[in-house]
């Protein structure tokens, strides 16, 4: 029953923000977490995905000002009043981290997941800059970078990844990507029938980095969750002409602006003097 293409379907519409995924992930993978930090970003004190946090539950409070009654879906809330989302490495088909890794430490596994080989990683951190989702973090102790392995060791033993196993509401579903796509389509249809018109799948198709093995059902636009929207979720190498032209134009503007700035600084220093 081993999966061919492993993935997560994270259905945020039933996420209750319990963070069981965060803890189960740390327990299984032996992560200590960062030193406790009072962020008070709603109920979030984890802050980000990094070397010590491979699942991260994000909270977005979007309450209307007058919220004595919130009907969902309805104009006041729309099922979007208090969004919760368990974020994770997306295991992109077009994985930026793999593209920039100079040592080929980052590979695609037999389960079609993106995996960092700890014994090959040289700690250059190119991948940290390249990842559009800020997933990867550097561990000072190991001198290497870390992220979600989609529980590679559990997959090898036919076990469900720890986060999906612990999720009480099945917001995190694990399985073969093709099967997950079917589940996601049915869930989206059910929500749309109930009037959740903004509900959408993110990364289910190839518009987002060629498709995400760990894809999401969102209750609002990707930007609301700090995710790049479809227009931006592409690798420069796959969309190079506008990218290069844009880059060139930016460079020209930057050089001119720089020149102007230097001249102005000179002027103001003269004036001051």
């Amino acid at each position, binding site marked *: 029953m081993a999966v061919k293409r492993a993935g997560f379907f994270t259905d945020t*519409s*039933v996420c*209750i*923000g*319990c*963070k*069981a995924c*965060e*803890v189960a992930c*740390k*327990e299984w993978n032996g992560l*200590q*977490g*960062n030193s*406790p*930090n*009072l962020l*008070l970003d*709603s*109920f979030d*004190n*984890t802050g980000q995905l990094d070397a010590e946090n491979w699942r991260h539950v994000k909270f977005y*409070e979007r*309450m*209307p*000002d*007058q*919220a*004595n*009654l*919130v*009907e*969902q879906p309805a104009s006041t*809330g729309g099922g979007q*009043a*208090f*969004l*919760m989302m368990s974020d994770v490495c997306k295991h992109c088909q077009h994985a930026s981290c793999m593209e920039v890794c100079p040592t080929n430490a980052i590979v695609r596994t037999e389960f079609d997941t993106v995996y960092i080989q700890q014994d090959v990683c040289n700690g250059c951190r190119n991948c940290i800059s390249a990842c559009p989702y800020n997933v990867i973090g550097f561990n000072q102790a190991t001198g290497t970078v870390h992220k979600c392995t989609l529980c590679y060791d559990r997959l090898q033993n036919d076990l469900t990844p720890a986060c999906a196993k612990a999720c*009480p*509401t*099945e917001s995190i579903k694990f399985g073969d990507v093709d099967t997950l796509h079917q589940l996601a389509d*049915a869930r989206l249809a*059910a929500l749309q*029938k*109930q009037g959740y018109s903004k509900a959408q799948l993110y990364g289910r198709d190839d518009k987002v980095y060629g498709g995400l093995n760990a894809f999401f059902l969102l209750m609002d636009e990707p930007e609301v969750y700090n995710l790049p929207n479809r227009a931006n979720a592409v690798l420069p190498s796959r969309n190079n002409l506008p990218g290069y032209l844009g880059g060139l134009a930016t460079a020209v503007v930057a050089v001119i602006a720089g020149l102007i700035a230097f001249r102005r600084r000179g002027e103001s220093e003269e004036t001051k003097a």
Partner: protein
Amino acid sequence: MTNHWRDLKNADLILINGANPAEAHPVGFQWFVKAKLDPSRGPGQGGGAKIVHADPRFTRTSALADTYLRIRTGTDAAYFGGLINYVLQNNLIHADYVRDYTNASWIVKQGYSFQDGLFSGYDKTKRTYDISTWAYETLPPANPGDTFARRDPTLQDPSSVFQLLKAHYARYTPEMVESITGIPKADFLKVAALVGEMGKPDKVMSIVYAVGLTHHTTGGQLIRSAAILQLLLGNVGRPGGGVNAERGHANIQGNTDHAISWEILPGYMKIPAPGQRTLDDFVAQSAPKKSDPNSWNFFGTNYKNFTVSLLKAWFGTAATADNDFAFNFIPKPAVNSSWISIFDQALKGNMEGLLLSGMTATSIGPDSNQVLQGLAKLKWLVVMDAFATTSSEFWRAPGQKPAEIQTEVFMLPTTHWIEKEGSFVNSGRWAQWKDQVIPPQGNARHDHWILADLFDRVRKLYGSAGGKFPDPIKAMTLQYADPLKPTFDELAREINGKDLTTGKQMASFAALKADGTTTAGNWIYTSSYTESGNNMKRRQGVDNPAANDPTGMGFYPNWAWSWPLNRRILYNRASADLAGNPWDPKRPGIKWDGTKWVGDVPDYPPTMKPVTQDPTAWLPFIMNGEGTGRLFSNSMVDGPFAEHYEPIESPIPNPLHASQSESPVAFLYDQAAGRPNRFGKPEQYPYVATSYRLTEHEHYITQHVPLLVGLQPQAFVEVPKELADQKGIKNGDRVRVSSARGILEVAALVTKRLGPMTVGGKKVYHIGIPIHWGFVGIAAERNPELAKHWLANALTPFVGDANSRTPEFKAFLVDIKKIE
């Protein structure tokens, strides 16, 4: 719960009040999610249910509810009262059910009244009711001893329970509901329209609550108001219905069943009272009495059987017919001995020592500073716990002077539940056996081994040194292989009970006898451990639904075991009509198949014909004296109908009756002890506070778990954005929250999930106070300066509900200021 977790998927509508299951019961919350998921699946299949969450705070539960209503804390009796009035005025009740399955037709005797917030029989000096007028008009007895009530099946008699109920709740208009609860009339009516549909026989609604209803001086009545609504809608006893308490810990249901509360014996029998000289006195004064010839009154009828079987389990051969089965070995408490009462007695200097097992008095409060004073007056304190607690360390609490505290503290390390096997009884009454995960660490011993050791030493002392009344101590049975180390298996067998004649395990409590030939450590658990083995270990579950859930209703009868008799839904005779057909054929509880009741384990004699075929058939609610659900009840000491009273500390006078604003019988410990009451007025303490737990922590114990401390690292309070703006409080600022009793100094989480509301014409704000922190644990040790005032219960009042003496943790007044 009358029903059980899995059964939530059978509901059309779920009202959540005084509960936050997504945060406090995240695993159980899967059933709420399943109830909602796919509307095309239809009723009973898990799909299309609507959830209405009424709460002062928009929580993680509200996020997944279909409708969120901001309600002022402690006003749920007015909300349910408004819904009761709405379904009565608009004739949306389940009329057949109300007529035949409730006590609506019982006639209340002359002398009962309710006026200006007071029921008849009030004694102002004693602050108690004489409840003799809360009774039925009895018919002239046909046989001596009969106490049958007069009934009017037309429900038209002005003294009928139905008419009195209607009059009582007529005051709960939508306008009144708005004034009390803060829920705007239009919003209330939207929800009322949804609820009004649920009186139809093919619809069913579940009401789910937790300690958000319990932790009030009106707690008992808040829950009663929900029960009355459910009876009127015909939703009690049915799959997808019921009144469902989510219990706080994995095994708090088991604790309650086994008499963790002082006022009951195991299995919800009353504790004997002074003056009851014989077993018969006790039974006569404690057992329910039949008030209708068709009432079986199973509990009342068997009260003596259950009591004698319990005494036989406890005292063995020392319990004989000649000594009234050792009835006088059981203590008859002369004073209230509930939990606040214990600390009150300590405070008065009346106690020498205290054993705390699995609870930390200081954190739990109420009024932690007063509890600390109480502990400091003890000669000795024994704390049995897996970790250091604010009680074992009370002497070094910030502000205490250790040099002046003479209390000798013994810390006895005990096993945590992962270090032992045994049973957990969940909210749905399922006793599920679990395994030991890891062996006991260090010197940890099971709590009950410590107690067994203590008991053994005390018994030896009685033997060598004598004592006033050694008989019960000497006679106590300890039929374990090692009396110092009883195994969980031995205890479970003993709780089930056995037939002393055959030596076999009892199969049912119906066979328990009063002649001393049977035992039962807890009659409601009889059948949990039978000759066929430990039924709590059964595991025929979701791996094969077709075989293991033959009705498709989610009963899974061979998964673990539920009390009583493996019944999954209490009062399930009421799930079918008089002829024995389910009210909703799609969602049967039990039904009459011509020869017997099938479906769930019937809450009824298995082969008793429906009343349409046998006029002498028992009424559906077999446990109480009426045989029907009680809209009017004399088993509460604060009123036969639920009434809204303000919390002891309230921002407004009661809009229903300002002259009797709070509960007239709430127990005010300080006043009763001759100490000054310390209650805040809204002028000094203008904000309503409510305390609660977060999903990231489990009460106080997880302050020792690094990964969970990482999730919620420090104490904080939730402050409404609008109020924070007025007060110049920004997210993360430190604030001082003060009540008339103490202070809390913590960080502020500024949020729009809390907001203003208008009650009694006045704008009020709630401050939300998570409870998990104190001066012990990882975060406190790391930040000792910040952690000086982290005990949430330093703020809460030292008062109790009249019925249960439960403290008012959920509604009190505070002020809040930014710490500059």
